């Protein structure tokens, strides 16, 4: 599949934003971070920036962005529509929680409960985003059980690293919780990604050129003449081949920068403490961004659409 930059930014950035929002809610509601106003402004500012810029970016690949509001209407059948509706509904409780924290100086008790409700809405939104891809049977690399798990864990993981960096920079609250959460989530997300790749490697393709043409009973089928000389929309959008040529290298790169390096850096924080904590956590974040963007690029670019069976691709 053609990896559209707007969609890569949307899924990684809004995922990280929702993840950060979840951790702001959990850490606030359970009293690990006090309702410090500057921390609230920076934390919610960053979370909302990532979420909103991600959602806006997702409209960037639309042919008619001015009609984007119509995408909210078909929630009964369409995961894309459900995702849009959930994203908007999530702004209610998360916005109230942010106001409670920043304006009222409260993040526990009733305000904390609103925060937890917001966190749930954030997770639902990320799940719905993942289902846009996981529901497409024509793209076997996406329609498997690891897709949604990966999206959820990578959102929670980027949120945990983000809140760890914010806590370390601003020196607010007990950062041990964020540290432990980061270690566990990076390890889990990396593991799920490995399982995802393993399942892709081991799965037999359900559809083949033989089943696509129905000519299997006459032998092995291949296209000998294309309907057109130049690439058409289908081949430009779905016949993307570069990633498949370099899959192994890119997977190692994504695995190293997205999971192994951040895990090692975050694990070292507890051993070394300040002032190394700052350098280590920021480095973990930068490495994680590079790794996760590569991972997401690969998620799109590597996926093979069954229509390519008609074109020998």
């Amino acid at each position, binding site marked *: *599949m053609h990896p559209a930059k707007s969609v890569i930014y949307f899924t990684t950035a809004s995922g990280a934003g929702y993840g950060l929002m979840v951790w702001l809610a959990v850490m606030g509601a359970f009293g690990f971070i006090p309702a410090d106003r500057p921390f609230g402004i920076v934390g919610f500012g960053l979370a909302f920036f990532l979420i909103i810029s991600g959602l806006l970016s997702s409209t960037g*690949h*639309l*042919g*008619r*962005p001015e*009609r*984007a509001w*119509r*995408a*909210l*209407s*078909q929630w*009964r*059948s*369409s*995961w*894309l*529509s459900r995702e*849009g509706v959930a994203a908007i509904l999530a702004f209610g409780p998360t916005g109230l929680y942010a106001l409670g924290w920043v304006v009222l100086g409260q993040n526990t008790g009733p305000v904390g409960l609103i925060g937890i409700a917001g966190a749930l809405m954030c997770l639902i939104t990320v799940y719905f985003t993942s289902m*846009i891809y996981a*529901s*497409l*049977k*024509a*793209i076997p690399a996406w329609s498997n059980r690891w897709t949604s798990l990966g999206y959820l864990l990578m959102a929670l993981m980027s949120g945990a690293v983000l809140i760890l960096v914010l806590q370390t920079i601003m020196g607010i609250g007990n950062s041990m919780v964020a540290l432990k959460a980061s270690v566990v989530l990076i390890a889990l997300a990396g593991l799920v990604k490995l399982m995802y790749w393993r399942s892709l490697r081991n799965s037999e393709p*359900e*559809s083949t*050129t033989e*089943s*696509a*043409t*129905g*000519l*299997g*009973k*006459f*032998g*092995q*089928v*291949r*296209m*000998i*003449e*294309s*309907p*057109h000389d*130049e*690439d*058409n*929309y*289908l081949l*430009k*959008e*779905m016949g993307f081949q570069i990633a498949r040529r370099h899959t192994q290298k890119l997977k190692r790169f994504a695995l190293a920068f997205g999971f192994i390096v951040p895990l090692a850096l975050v694990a070292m924080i507890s051993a070394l403490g300040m002032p190394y904590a700052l350098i280590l956590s920021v480095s973990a974040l930068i490495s994680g961004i590079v790794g996760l963007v590569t991972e997401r690029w690969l998620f799109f670019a590597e996926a093979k*659409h*069954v*229509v390519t069976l*008609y*074109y020998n691709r």
Partner: protein
Amino acid sequence: MTLLPQNPSKVKLGLVIDLDICVGCHACAVNCKEWNTSGKMAPLTDVDPYGAKPDGVWFNRVHTFEAVDEAAGTSRTVHFPRSCLHCDDAPCVTVCPTGASYKRDEDGIVLINTDICIGCKLCSWACPYGAREYDEDEGVMKKCTLCVDKIYNENLPPESRVPACVSTCPSGARSFGDLGDPDSDVSKLVAAREGYALMPEQGTKPVNRYLPPRPKKIGDEVAPRLLDHHDDSADGAGLLARWVDKILTV
């Protein structure tokens, strides 16, 4: 509404494509483009049509496949027109977030309301058959309409009320009709020739059917050698005599 019809009609209009007859002339694709570029989903925009990399919206694409059976030492060349199959369980319809994609209750034709399509392309990702193409110029998706503006058009003579690809096919490889009615001509044709659906494992329940190439005749039934015959009417006469014979025969 992008839910599939709740009470679908029994009528399932669709195409039956005979791969035994198709000669791969692309006339169906060309006439489809001709009709539809001024039809319901008009225009079928071309981008850079006379340049180095021409591209454009087509509803019908004719591939040529080769099926090779190494063990038997046989191979078949099959021309294969590919277009929308108007699936009963059309994934392109249910993924649509706006309600632009829909399947008609009355005859099962899958259409797009291009006035509300946002061009998110998700329907083209959901379709296993590559039936939907994006119009870069208009920013919306386009697809085969089964010539909905032709098959019901009372201004046309009855024999013309079939999709453009069907009326133009010079070899009669394409048939149009109600595949929901087991007694219709197309259903009988499918039954007689063991017509099949493409990629049934995708669960889309296509309406269109393809008829497989007939078995190859191998063995005793050899066509007569036409190159062997010679003119023996002149009884071995010389060049001049044969020339005179020809003139006098006229």
